[in-house]
């Protein structure tokens, strides 16, 4: 069933590309349009909580801290190649009943039922700023994670999730040390790179799909590794040029949120 759906989507996308290419041949040649990714950021709090309160069960980041993440993504957009830009970026607040039920450490299934499925927009890159939602089993870690568009609804709802990692007496998660620490903003860029690259199961990467084998460039190391790498506070992440080509191609073609291998001819 999944394969069939994928095939239909691939065919539709290919047809759309062919029609698009034919139309562009008939028209006066123009330069490629700048590709944009529309972003919907959701700040997830428990019922009755306010954004930015430091003892929330849900997200403890302030609006300014969330904005700083999104602004960093916007200003480093060129790491994804070409003229990729993230626009518009909208921010909304959502109340998660799962937090009422489970408290701060929330199983993914509760988040999925109470937030992801009801509050998900197909035409946007959905980014959820949360408290301590565990990644899907069997990993179950309250960190940052991504489901890329390798599948579309009803089989998958692509998203990016970032837990706050703020002060957590009684829960113990200090993921990014302090939310205002500049290098933590690269966590979002890292997850967006996963999302746009869709490396799931693709050869040529290490087991975690973080490091392209044989490449001198790095996707992962700047976030947590330290020694010989220049301080990540100054530089954004680097994507190898081939990967930049892929991400730019998807965004330029307007298919960044579809599960199709549309870039093979690029």
């Amino acid at each position, binding site marked *: 069933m999944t394969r069939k759906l994928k095939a239909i989507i691939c065919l539709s996308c290919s047809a759309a590309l062919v029609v698009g290419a034919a139309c562009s041949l008939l028209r006066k040649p123009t330069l490629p349009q700048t590709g944009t990714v529309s972003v919907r950021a959701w700040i997830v709090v428990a019922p009755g909580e306010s954004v930015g309160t430091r003892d929330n069960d849900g997200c403890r980041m302030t609006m300014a801290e969330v904005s700083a993440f999104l602004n960093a993504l916007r200003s480093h957009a060129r790491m994804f190649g070409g003229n990729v830009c993230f626009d518009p970026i909208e921010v909304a607040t959502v109340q998660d009943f799962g937090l009422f039920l489970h408290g701060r450490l929330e199983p993914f299934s509760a988040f999925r039922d109470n937030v992801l499925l009801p509050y998900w927009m197909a035409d946007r890159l959905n980014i959820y700023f949360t408290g301590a939602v565990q990644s899907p089993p069997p990993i179950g870690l309250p960190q940052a994670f991504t489901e890329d568009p390798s599948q579309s609804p009803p089989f998958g709802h692509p998203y990016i999730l970032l837990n706050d990692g703020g002060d957590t007496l009684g829960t113990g998660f200090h993921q990014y040390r302090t939310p205002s620490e500049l290098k933590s903003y690269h966590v979002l860029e890292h997850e967006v790179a996963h999302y746009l690259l869709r490396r799931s199961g693709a050869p040529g990467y290490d087991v975690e799909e973080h490091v392209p*084998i044989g490449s*001198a460039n790095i996707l992962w190391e700047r976030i947590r590794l330290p020694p010989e790498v220049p301080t990540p506070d100054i530089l954004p992440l680097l994507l190898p040029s081939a990967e930049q080509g892929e991400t730019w191609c998807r965004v330029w073609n307007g298919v960044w949120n579809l599960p199709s291998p549309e870039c093979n001819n690029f």
Partner: protein
Amino acid sequence: MRHVVEIATIVAAIYGGGTALGASSEVQAALDRWEGTGEHQSIGEVLSFAATVRAHSARGDQEVLGRLLGILENSTQAFVSRREALRLSCELADEAAARKVVKIVRSGLETQHAEGPVPDSARALPGEFIRHGARHLMAVMNDHTELLALIKDIYVAGYDVWDVWHDFFHLITECKAPLAARQKALVDMIVARPADQIPLFAVNTLDESVFPALRERVKAERSPEKFHWTAAQVLADLGDAEVITALQEQKRSSGSANPKRARNLEVMIWKVQIQHPSSKLLDFIASTEVLEARPRSWAVQRAAALGIPYQRIRETILEHDRQARTKVERGGMVELKRVGLELGILQGVDLSHVPLDQSPETRP
């Protein structure tokens, strides 16, 4: 001589690369370059050396292991180089090499500890050991005592654990050391970090024998800033009735000044009370009551840990499913089904109308 080389090549091909006959020429060449480049390697080069060694070496190849351990021990090598050597050593280790890896990681831990605060760069190797190494070693070691002690010491030493938090506890609970040794390690880990959360699957491997040590920590400090929240939470999960006094005292002092903390304490007290007698857990599971921060999945796990027959727990879950009608009442059904299946309380046919998460695996 030529025939000998050919036979060696054929044997190597059959076994998929390096064998007891020694490392292949590709592996030799990769290791030569790996060892020679010192701190000036690019990450791409190191990964490519590692990929060659991984593809053409067999577990227990003494020559390859000896050279990998040399890279691992060499502090002038770049971090990425040592990290890859650690991963590969663990993947290829036999029992003797596994003991050496444990010794090297421990010696690094002690050296860093002795030099004062651990710099960010030095935090990564023990983390890599937990993330990628320990499980390989567990598979080849017969005696897990030293391994258990090392895993515990890395946690206790205060290394960043956010991305391997579950791994620590999975490793401790799954290793083959005697139950008493594993429980002792868990108690040390609980005591070492007063504001952490311990996963319930790890708590459920503990029993009354750990109560005295944890009660002592809870009673030691009364101010909320120094109160041992981790020990208190574990005792509450385990249903230790004696901890209630300390919790109530904390709740009184938190009062209206910190309603969130007071609420958390209330939940902890509830967790103790609902386990006396344990049949109250079943009543709660079967009911449609929705209480803040009191998930049924927790009650199911505790009921199983307390030895209540699985059939009775299963019946109560099914009873809850029949009674719960509103969206709010059914809020925890997916989690309940997942936990029930994981523990073997539910069968595949149970709650077939509750869809489990079918999302593809996510990447951290």
